[in-house]
């Protein structure tokens, strides 16, 4: 049963004002095309969930989509701070932003507990850190065997997961390779799942390599084909990370006017990722991946 939608349809039908939205991807596979569409649709009061808010949430915060961010590391990797995020946290501009903060391990476990339908999961991190002091959701649990106190985090169950991936079939059976981050846990933890892929492929191609499947179609509500949809992040086997843009973002976002100009030109000023891609043809060509194919394995018996 085809679950194919346009990005406009998928974001319009599956993401509502006030939703908790997880948009994972650790450097790899960050769903920028989806985020831009949410900005264009002027979605409001979202609770945004990512380990690393990255440029994606910086843009969504600046555009006024976010009420709250749940995260563990908010920076522009190797470049500097996220200016819009800092403005919002330090000065409440353009509007106040609530934050809920963990370490990476804590965030990972919140999603894993959600995916496993457990109310909590224990961990050996957090001991001696001030994080539990400022985040009362980080609690302790006593081990019924050793008697020791472990720290623990509560399950996170977002309303929607938006998952960028290399490929899926029309039914939503989704495959990923390269860094997989916490994609699977984010999708299983959430009530609804939108998958955005570089290409929709045949069901047969998926079935020829079942070990690469991240999500089965029945766990997916919409599949959107959006080539270059993770730019300026990257997709292994498709295009490289646009490191130059990550550096330029520091300048663009330093002043709200620069950031607004960027949104005007590259988000509000395009109809969607197709137009963005066309206007960025030279960049697309520059970043295109060279071929480093793996060897096939045999699934016969």
């Amino acid at each position, binding site marked *: 049963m085809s679950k194919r939608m346009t990005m406009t349809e998928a974001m319009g039908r599956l993401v509502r004002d006030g939703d908790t939205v997880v948009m994972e991807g650790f450097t790899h596979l960050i769903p920028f095309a989806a985020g831009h569409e949410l900005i264009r649709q002027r979605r409001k009061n979202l609770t945004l969930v990512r380990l690393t808010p990255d440029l994606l949430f910086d843009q969504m915060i600046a555009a006024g989509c976010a009420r709250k961010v749940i995260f563990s590391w908010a920076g522009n990797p*190797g470049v500097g701070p996220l200016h819009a995020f800092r403005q919002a946290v330090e000065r409440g501009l353009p509007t106040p932003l609530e934050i809920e903060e963990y*370490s990476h391990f804590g965030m990972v476990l919140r999603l894993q507990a959600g995916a496993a339908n457990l109310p909590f999961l224990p961990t050996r*991190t957090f001991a001696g850190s*001030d994080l539990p002091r400022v985040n009362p959701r980080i609690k302790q649990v006593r081990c019924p065997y050793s008697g020791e106190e472990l720290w623990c985090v509560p399950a996170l169950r977002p309303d929607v997961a938006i998952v960028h991936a290399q490929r899926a079939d029309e039914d939503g059976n989704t495959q990923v390779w390269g860094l997989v981050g916490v994609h699977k846990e984010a999708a299983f933890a959430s009530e609804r799942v939108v998958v955005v892929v570089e290409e929709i492929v045949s069901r047969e191609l998926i079935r020829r390599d079942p070990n690469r499947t991240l999500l089965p179609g029945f766990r997916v509500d919409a599949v959107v084909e959006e080539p270059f949809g993770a730019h300026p992040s990257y997709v292994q086997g498709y295009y490289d990370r646009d490191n130059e843009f990550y550096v330029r973002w520091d300048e663009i976002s330093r002043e709200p006017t620069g950031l607004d100009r960027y949104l005007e030109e590259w988000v509000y000023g395009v109809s969607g990722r197709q137009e963005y891609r066309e206007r960025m043809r030279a960049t697309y060509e520059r970043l295109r991946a060279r071929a480093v194919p793996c060897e096939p394995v045999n699934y016969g018996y």
Partner: protein
Amino acid sequence: MKDGFTTNEIMVTTAARMLRDGEVVFVGIGIPNMAVNLARRTRCPNLVLIYESGAIGARPERLPVSIGDPTLVTGALGVCSMPEVFQYYLQRGFIDVGFLGAAQIDRFGNLNSTVIGDYARPKVRLPGSGGACEIALLARRVLIVMNHKHRAFPERVDFITSPGYLGGGDEREQQRLPGAGPEAVITDLGVLGFSSDTREMVLESLHPGATVEQVQQETGWKLRVASPLKRTEPPTAEELRVLREELTLPGGAA
């Protein structure tokens, strides 16, 4: 570069020499990344590079700009999910060395990468823990790399993101923290360890050209100095060659 090498270069070579061949190292970006790659190309060909992104046994062709760079995957020995990297690798005790940096470090090696000022009303909001809190607790050896600046070395950090020895002495053991606590702090001026009783920071080695006075001036408390105080061995010609010819970022030094 008055001694024929930069401060970054001596930090990198000093950090690289603290690694032992065959160790499994949790690598960050910047100087730790340079250090690990230098060690791998010189004394430690069997280092295993692991990134919290899930890349195992990476063999980067270029210097990664971030710990999730695609070059960490192409040609790697393996890839695992982040639940696995934190649970089956780090928490299980298979990471021999973790590198950390921070905006602030205090007398007892506690690290702050969360906030300057009050948490609820921050003066400067920093990026946050990332994986630092768990690396500080769960890697077998923790090495810290930071520039030695007065504002980065206060007597007490504003916020403990990643615990060192807490209030010093045996407080870390008392509170039953896992792991041994930080082993060394490598700065642009020297190398500092931690005293085995009070657990406060001790200057153990000065980089060429640096003085005790200069280090004290950039430190926010009365710093203990080891006796004898060592001089850091400068980078060798071979180390500098590898750094300059093989480990430059596309478009500039790391």
